[in-house]
């Protein structure tokens, strides 16, 4: 079917207009539909940010009274970049790394919604900056293994694991001491 307006392009939109109870069918192409005003010009796509902005208007359920909470949210501001909590909920973006600390108490519900219930990072640690953190993560992992080994009564392996943990912790302690000097 060709477009009723330009008779050039194929009709891709099929609209039904009802005026005074009289039904009228219109078959036009997208370009003509825009020109004639049947549809809006370049309707902006509904982005994920529009959706998020809605998600942010979220009152955390704390024991404090609601009005107090609201008041606090109004005045909450990142001391480093100056972004207010209100601005943050409006644009849905942080202004700097410090905003994460400034808005900390309101962030968990937001992250939970956006990240399928998760609030804590469980991935890569920076290679250079994170030497200490990496060790900590390894100790955590070994402790988990140790617990499993004890539960399974594999005491010999558990002893090896315990020594490994001790060694790591001692190393860390040494680093700390060096740092103090």
């Amino acid at each position, binding site marked *: 079917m060709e477009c009723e307006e330009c008779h050039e392009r194929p009709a891709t939109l099929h609209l039904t207009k009802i005026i005074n109870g009289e039904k009228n069918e219109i078959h036009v192409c997208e370009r003509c539909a825009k020109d004639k005003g049947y549809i809006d010009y370049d309707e902006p796509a509904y982005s*994920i940010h529009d959706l*998020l902005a809605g998600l942010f208007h979220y009152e955390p359920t704390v024991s404090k009274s609601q009005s107090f909470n609201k008041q606090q949210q109004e005045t909450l501001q990142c001391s480093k970049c100056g972004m207010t909590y209100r601005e943050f909920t409006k644009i849905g973006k942080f202004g700097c790394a410090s905003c994460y600390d400034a808005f900390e108490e309101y962030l968990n519900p937001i992250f939970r919604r956006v990240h*399928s219930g998760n609030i804590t990072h469980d*991935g890569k*640690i920076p290679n250079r900056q994170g030497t200490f*953190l990496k060790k900590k993560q390894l100790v955590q992992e070994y402790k988990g293994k140790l617990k499993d080994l004890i539960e399974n009564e594999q005491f010999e392996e558990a002893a090896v694991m315990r020594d490994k943990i001790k060694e790591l912790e001692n190393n860390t302690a040494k680093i700390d001491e060096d740092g103090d000097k």
Partner: protein
Amino acid sequence: MSLQPFINEAISPWMKEEGPDNDIVLSTRIRLARNFEQFTFPIIANEDELTPIVDVIKEHYHHQSFADYQDLEYISMEELKPIQKRVLVEKHLISPNLAEKSKNSGVLISENEQVSVMVNEEDHIRMQLYFPGLQLEKALESAFAFDDWLEEKIDYAYDEHRGYLTSCPTNVGTGMRASVMMHLPALTLTQKLNKMIPAINQLGLVVRGIYGEGSEAIGNIFQISNQVTLGRSEADIIDNLLSVVKKLIEQEQFARQLLVEQSELRLENRIFRSYGTLKYSRIIESKEAATCLSDLRLGIDVGYINHLSKSILNELMILTQPGFLQHYAKETLSANQRDIRRASIIRERLKLENE
């Protein structure tokens, strides 16, 4: 300008290699978002506040090489003409968002165009690594190594509990978006993909069109990527994505087989009509071109067409984009002029194959 050098320019060197599962998976991409600890994010920073970031990148990484990524070059958005920016967008080397910026935003690109680092887009740093075919594990390994290399000179904004801190809460944690570009004509034709999308979404993955967020799936090309970045390790995210992509490959192959068995003549007819359209059109709109190219590629994959190379879809999908057409023509073209130019480039490209 003859077509061959222009094709060479349009197709990034890494795209010329054949990757695993390349009958269905066109490419794999890993993107990592990172920020400088001490500086305000680009979204509210003024231009002066962004200068030190560009300076660090230029000082330590401009004209440097790392692993397979030789001679990285920093290009400022300010230096580029609108058509040049558009070309970079169509090659997926920069985002439309970065293209709109000018001073103190730019991109660091390796010679083989496999790595691009967007500077001062939404985050201070967004590095992207591309691989042909399905190579998620390899891509992650390379991305981590490249990330470590950048971190040697940059103090990242990182928190023990929240991970890598990003401007948008949707990227916090790993800061990683892993995506796989897939050609799924049979699943689209049989309308099976629509039914699979809700299930894919439930696994924390998104299905989008070829040019990312909000874009339409042209030419039956879809991008599958992770949505969740917090609380899962990069390796877990990739495992999850890989298992879904493998399932999709399996389903697509099955649907193709079924199409060939059940409607052989109708499928053959569709493919050769599209081939005819591409071969003889004098005016062709981008959507029609994309549909016909998808048919043609399917024809090559199922063996109806033997004398054309597989790379034709990837090449022509990029070559026939508005930015490239205008870059080739060396002038600004109206929509009608582009449709004419597009038809002629396709005819010429097909002629190259017959020679």
